[in-house]
């Protein structure tokens, strides 16, 4: 009985920790398929978390907070897009700076609003929606189908984005921009516009992921609370081979890796908790090392376009 409870708690934590990764990684999948790598994802997540927290606080509604978080994440991605796509600056350094800026600006805004020491915010949280029938399945039901609505957004976006990417002409144009921008351009695709929209969409989902952290996860905001999830999400995209379905699976796998600590604690293993904190990053590295040889990135990923000499 105790073991069953621990497993349910483990599964529940896996989904809870996997959902923000999945949201951010799905967005980044679309961005990268268009030929743009946005390392500034972390900046969008933290902006989404603060935007979501402030929005929920101002309106008293967690749902509005999620929307405002998405807008904040999109705004950060807009800065990235203006420089890296509009001006053609180096995507990797621009993204790194955008992450740094996101962490700095959110820290400054948070301290300006709540004081240098910071107060423990108590935010309205997202209600769980229980799916009829499905949530009654033993063991799996409540971890998978008695969750905040952002979880169902992930379940829905996986197939939708897959269809959109591989079965519609818009999806084809997006992939063309990422594989062969010159040819896409010759075929009439407006490459820069496609890439900008893809980057903004990635920022939107990363912002929602951040808002989920603040409003479904913890019910509070803390500086640097994104804790590198943006970078793990980018690794998740690689592990999911730029395919929306696999990306969701990979994200849940990392949610499970992060949730391992609850399971092992429940079984009374005494391992220093810092090792658990490091575990997701180590596992990501190991997975990249074992996996990447078989993955192929979009051919024009991270290359500025049009090429200027």
């Amino acid at each position: 009985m105790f073991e069953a409870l621990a497993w349910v708690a483990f599964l529940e934590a896996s989904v809870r920790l996997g959902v923000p990764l999945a949201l951010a990684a799905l967005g980044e999948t679309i961005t990268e398929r268009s030929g743009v790598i946005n390392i500034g994802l972390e900046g969008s997540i933290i902006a989404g978390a603060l935007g979501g927290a402030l929005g929920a606080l101002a309106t008293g509604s967690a749902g509005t907070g999620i929307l405002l978080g998405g807008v904040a994440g999109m705004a950060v991605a807009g800065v990235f897009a203006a420089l890296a796509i509009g001006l053609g600056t180096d995507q990797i350094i621009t993204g790194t700076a955008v992450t740094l800026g996101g962490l700095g600006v959110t820290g400054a805004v948070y301290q300006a609003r709540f004081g240098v020491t910071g107060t423990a915010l108590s935010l309205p949280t997202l209600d769980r929606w229980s799916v009829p029938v499905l949530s009654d399945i033993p063991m799996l039901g409540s971890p998978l189908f008695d969750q905040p609505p952002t979880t169902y957004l992930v379940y829905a976006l996986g197939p939708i984005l897959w269809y959109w990417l591989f079965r519609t002409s818009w999806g084809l144009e997006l992939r063309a921009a990422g594989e062969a921008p010159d040819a896409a351009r010759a075929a009439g695709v407006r490459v820069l516009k496609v890439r900008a929209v893809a980057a903004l969409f990635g920022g939107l989902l990363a912002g929602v992921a951040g808002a989920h952290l603040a409003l479904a996860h913890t019910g509070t905001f803390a500086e640097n609370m994104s804790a590198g999830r943006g970078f793990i999400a980018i690794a998740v995209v690689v592990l999911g081979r730029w395919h929306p379905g696999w990306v969701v699976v990979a994200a849940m796998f990392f949610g499970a890796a992060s949730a391992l600590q609850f399971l092992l604690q429940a079984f009374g293993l005494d391992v220093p908790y810092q090792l658990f904190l490091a575990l997701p990053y180590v596992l990501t590295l190991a997975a990249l090392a074992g996996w990447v040889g078989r993955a192929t990135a979009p051919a024009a990923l991270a290359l500025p376009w049009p090429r200027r000499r």
Partner: protein
Amino acid sequence: MPDRRRLAPLYVAAGALVLTAVLLALGLVLGGYDPHAALSALVRGAFGSRDAFLSVTLVRAVPLILTGLAVALAFRAGVWNIGAEGQLYAGAIAGVWVGLTASWLPAWALLPAVLGASLLAGATWALVPAMMKLKLGVGEVITTILMNFVAIHAASFMVRGPLQESRGVFPQTDAVGPAARLPLLVDGSRLHGGFLLAVLLCLGLWAFLRWSRAGFAVRAVGGSVEVAEVAGRIRSRKVVGATFLASGALAGLAGGVEVSGVTFALYENLSPGWGYTAIAVALLAGLNPIGVLVTGTFFGALQAGAGAMQRSAGVPAVWVVAVEALVILAVLGLDQAWRRAMVPRGSAVAHRALPEGSGPKTDRSGERGPGDSDV
């Protein structure tokens, strides 16, 4: 117009600083602060007295110069080492460990052993992403960032576990003995020998890149792997690997110098993100080692002034992180805008006529080897 092109990095750097200052002042006004009071507190905190300059600004500049050199060297070879932060922590852990346990060494050998251990640890930390890049084809950007998080948690584990102080109260190590400490450079200040070391390394690295055969190989590989291989008969993989490790060693040294010159012990949060600030330091310097000396000192002053700004104008010190990001973005944006302005619009011939490589070398539109991936 060779002279104008040569001056481009200076124009870009100056323009970036002006732009950043304007945006900072604007941000301060929007945040409800008094920009004049805040900025004058910042300047006073950094340059206001002999003590402020020697003991705060220059002391803060040392790890920034060393990690800035690490980033500049790596970027020159086209190695995207975003992992200076983790390599610094690895160096700090190793340095403290040797300083505390190698007391059987003769006194004169302890400090070199501490610094040597930090060099080695930094290089070892860089070895993992370097091997993953060269042997497995995994791009270094994400792997170096992930290694940063591992190192930070490792340091946190060390100061609560194996290396915790003998009293066992706080998450920190014991202080290393006097023999493991860097000597002071100026009496009555906190300026330590690490600054001299950093200056010498800047000059040395500059000379290395400019005049040595190996330095040429580094620049050639950074320019274009294919051209370096075909025209220069340079074995680019060796150059990339060696540069990656050297970059890690420099960042590790920053950690060793910090624990033997300033803190004498290891703490959690030893670094306030120096390894990331280093990217701004290196880019603003146009990846030039002598420039790193100047820009590292500039960011040291900024961090020194940030503390004063928080104390006397109530502006949170975290603003400086946003400013650093602004500097990077301004350099990138202005550099790109400058290039565009130099090329007449709509002229395909002119596009080809201009060689690459003025300003901070951030444009990687050049050829990359097959299978090379940044992600």
